């Protein structure tokens, strides 16, 4: 059974069909790439899965259950986390606090009583946060305010913060935007390491070097519709994809 399944999903903004009858199936453990030209509906798809706005038509199922009735913060409880294309950290909180405040998974909720959880100090969560700091390479900056981090560090922190929610499915919205090729290489290692831990990833990305290097399967969107799906090699050879990207006639 697919972990995430979209059936005939549509989202219209006024007359604009941002996403139009999209079918997708992401299997557990996969790194699934979602690519397409600007405005093709990739980010909208991510926002629909994250529950930022309702569907116009269609259905989304996660682990076989419909997500429709699930409000945004409960989708996280179900195991869906995301990062943003434009970074949205809690700028006036420290690196440590950004991770601490994101620990809202059912396991974390169950571990402490209400009062201990909300009024207890920060030291209680050490065992969970230290590995995340190591993972993101920010251990030496744990007390720095998030807004004082460099761009690359902020992206790493955002990924770590998403991991702090213990997701089964991680939605990455253009994680490599604005990165140099060395940083893209590191990001690739991190994504592969997450995959090794069994996290399923839906990756929206323009940087083909990253997409082709980490994904198991790719779907290509254009004008809100899926025009191709397959392995990275199949996608690279697909004439419809070349046409959408290059604009001209397929070679």
């Amino acid at each position, binding site marked *: 059974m697919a972990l995430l399944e979209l059936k005939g999903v549509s989202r219209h903004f006024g007359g604009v069909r941002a996403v139009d009858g999209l079918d997708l199936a992401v299997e557990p453990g996969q790194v699934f790439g979602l690519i397409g030209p600007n405005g093709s509906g990739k980010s909208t798809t991510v926002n629909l899965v*994250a529950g*930022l706005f309702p569907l116009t038509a269609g259905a989304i199922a996660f682990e076989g259950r419909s997500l429709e009735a699930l409000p*945004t*913060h409960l989708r*996280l*409880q179900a195991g869906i*986390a*995301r990062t*943003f294309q434009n970074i*949205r*950290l*809690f*700028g*006036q*909180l420290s690196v440590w*606090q950004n991770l*601490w*405040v*994101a620990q*809202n*998974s059912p396991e974390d909720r169950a571990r402490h009583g209400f009062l201990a*959880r*909300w*009024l*207890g*100090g*920060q030291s209680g969560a050490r065992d969970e946060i230290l590995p995340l700091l190591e993972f993101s390479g920010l251990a030496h900056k744990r007390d720095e305010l998030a*807004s004082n981090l460099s761009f690359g560090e902020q992206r790493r922190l955002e990924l770590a*913060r998403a991991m*702090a*929610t213990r997701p089964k499915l991680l939605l990455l919205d253009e994680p490599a935007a604005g990165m140099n090729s060395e940083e893209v290489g590191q990001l690739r290692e991190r994504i592969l390491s997450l995959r090794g831990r069994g996290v399923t990833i839906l990756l929206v990305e323009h940087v083909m070097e990253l997409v082709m290097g980490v994904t198991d399967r790719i779907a290509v969107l254009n004008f809100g519709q899926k025009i191709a799906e397959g392995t990275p090699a199949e996608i690279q050879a697909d004439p419809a994809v070349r046409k959408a990207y290059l604009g001209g006639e397929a070679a």
Partner: protein
Amino acid sequence: MLDFLQALSDGVLFGATYALIGIGFTLVFGVMHKINMAYGAASVGGAYCGLLVLQVMAGAPPLVVFFCAFLAGGLLGWLVYLTCFHFIPITNPLATLMATVGMLLLIDEIIVHTTAGMPMAYPAMFDDVMLRVGEFTLRGDLMMVFAVSVLCMAGLLALLYRTRLGLATRAVSQQTVAALLCGIRVGQVNATTFVVTGLLGGIAGAMIGASVGTLSPLLTTPLTVKGLIVTVIGGLGSVPGAIIAGLMVGGFESVLQLYRGVTERDLYVMLLLFVFLVFRPGGLFAAKGGRD
């Protein structure tokens, strides 16, 4: 010179209550980007509820009255949240504002009708204590007001900066969407903010009653105005700003009352606000960051 110092110190001590009211306005604004116009009235209402204890238990110690005002303030805060924010479309900027103005008038009316509009005596503590340094005196009741207010502020700051609840509150105020997607229940955080500010308001109302000696329904409007002035001077959304601005406005109005009389006093407070709006519209501490 001595008169000046005396007026200033009395004013700054009393200003701690303005600081609490300012914090209430500023916290709600920081978290929801909304003004809760009912806050001043709810604070006075909380203080009145504290007096109910004396009905049930005649001769109850002032501390019990204050504590009940504190709890009643929190309950009123939650009621204001429920009636003016929870069921009101939050995206419409005017809807919640008008709802809270309505709530301000409603609370005001309820107080007027239940007390027949007459001022009621409010208990105080240490009102027979005087610290004297030569001609200069420090009133015991004002020092108690100041101490209780500072204690509440310290408690609030510890809550905001040391606990996960406080961090979640700050996270919501900095990035609401990201907070939602980190699993923070924004609705709960908003409601909690109203309860916490309500608790502070209840104690502020009680402290005003204790230092003035009476509570009157005439208090709600000026307190609302002072609270908003403190909030703007401190910088919308800034808790430290509200604290400093509260003490400053308290001292300022007390000194002007000394030189210009009680009738002209508020005029100069408005003038102070005007000066700030012209020369430093962001307030003492313009809010850092903010949403998006």
